[in-house]
């Protein structure tokens, strides 16, 4: 059982090259911000290290932070054995959002990442099957959970706002 500070310490020791930032001033949980392109390596470490043993990805959610012109992804990790939790956050550019996929580490991330792609347009690098999931496969009007999304007039000749 470790808290977020201890995990941050362990991460800093293992990855001296990467930047980590602990943000705990906002209620209710603190989270660690890390680099989107190395999140897979960090995840590997978190998953495989026996003292951390984050064997389960509970949740993965994309967020559109339009004021800062960025998209972010929150990872909620949990260890079923050691019973500790961790929130990771990665921030990526809004115009070309790219995040490394963690599907190899936690297979359950597959659909979560597809959903984040579908809703926000975040591209997950090395994802095995990055297609839309909830919207129609041929939806061309963009990614609906972005704050500046606008409904199209027509989809396949059908009027959208019925």
């Amino acid at each position, binding site marked *: 059982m470790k808290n977020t500070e201890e995990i941050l310490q362990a991460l800093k020791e293992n990855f001296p090259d990467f930047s980590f930032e602990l943000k705990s001033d*906002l209620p209710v949980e603190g989270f660690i911000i890390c680099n989107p392109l190395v999140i897979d390596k960090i995840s590997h470490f978190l998953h495989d290290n026996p003292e951390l043993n984050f064997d389960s990805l509970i949740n993965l*959610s994309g967020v559109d932070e339009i004021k800062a012109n960025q998209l972010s992804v*929150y990872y909620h990790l949990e260890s079923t054995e050691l019973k500790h939790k961790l929130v990771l956050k990665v921030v990526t550019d809004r115009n070309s959002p790219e995040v490394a996929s963690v599907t190899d580490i936690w297979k359950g991330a597959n659909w979560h990442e597809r959903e984040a792609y579908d809703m926000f347009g975040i591209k997950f690098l090395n994802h095995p099957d990055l297609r839309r999931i909830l919207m129609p496969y041929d939806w061309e009007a963009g990614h609906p959970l972005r704050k500046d999304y606008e409904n199209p007039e027509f989809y396949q000749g059908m009027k959208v706002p019925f």
Partner: protein
Amino acid sequence: MINTKSSAIRTEEMVLNMGPQHPSTHGVLRLELALEGEIITKVTPHIGYLHRCFEKHCEAMTYPQIVPYTDRMDYLASMGNELGYAVAMEKLLGIEVPQRVEYIRVIMAELQRIASHLVALGTYGADIGAFTPFLYCFRDREKILHLFEITCGARLLYNYIWVGGLSHDLHPDFVRKTRDFIKEFKPTIKELNDILSYNKIFIDRTANVGILPVKTAINFGVSGPNLRASGIKWDIRKDDPYSVYSKFDFDIPVGKGTHGTVGDSWDRYFVRILEMEESLKIIEQALDQLPDGDVQSAIPKRIKPNAGHVYGRVENPRGELGYFIISDGSTTPYRVKVRAPSFVTLQILGELCKGYMIADVITILGSIDIVLGEIDR
């Protein structure tokens, strides 16, 4: 499992679309099955037919207005959805809720768990071909729905558990009627076991089918009865207690592989039956300890949390239901993401079905007990 490789005759793979309109896909789910005769080589689920933009809607609504929308996600366990939302919001707002409210919430959530499991078990029987247990289950579920109806006036979509309180206090008859229900319900579990659980044909159909090893299950993020059937004692009610669950004495049933391997479809089925019995225990204890008080005293007049984010989770009948809520300090949430248990669980279908037959796809799909309303949101 049958080996198809050794056949000398050249055969062609058949693609069969199961759904979106199919009697046993439990909603509008489309499965693309690649078949070698009757043997499955690949299953690709296609979802999104029931997408109702829950998360987008939430960004345009005030916090109390979201509650009726949460009802419509897992429409078989609406109380659980509301409870999850309330737990998350109270964590974000830092509200202390009166004890009576917490007890009533637990009673409702456990009754809902029984109702939801009854649907799961009944439809599972119907999937396998036994139609009669299905109606017995629905008969008993109807009694639970009646209890909800006298409490809040609705049978399925309650809008009962609010942030900080409840919409109504219990009906004066509620405690008596619930005790009556528990008394009537106990023998029907035995009856269900007689007619379905221990039936040889049923065991043959479900045991050793769709085995889910515990490692795979955790890696996929599977939760709830499906995970427990694989043999691990993981229950948020015990491991990360919310509400007043820490005050009750109950067991966590796990799969034991009685008729086959641990984590097969029969285990997933039977864990739900055992869970109903545990829920009855919790309800009885809660009814005995039920404190007095005002159920609406802690409801905030205006919900306007500070900027921040919260992940609140509860043990829903189908697994871990989590709400990730980001607030920007206004009366509407900035972002709501729902971690729906069925959404995560459905991913393993492709893994589980490989090498089994068409009839087993139905068995496995029924045993993981998904609700499409929650998957598509």
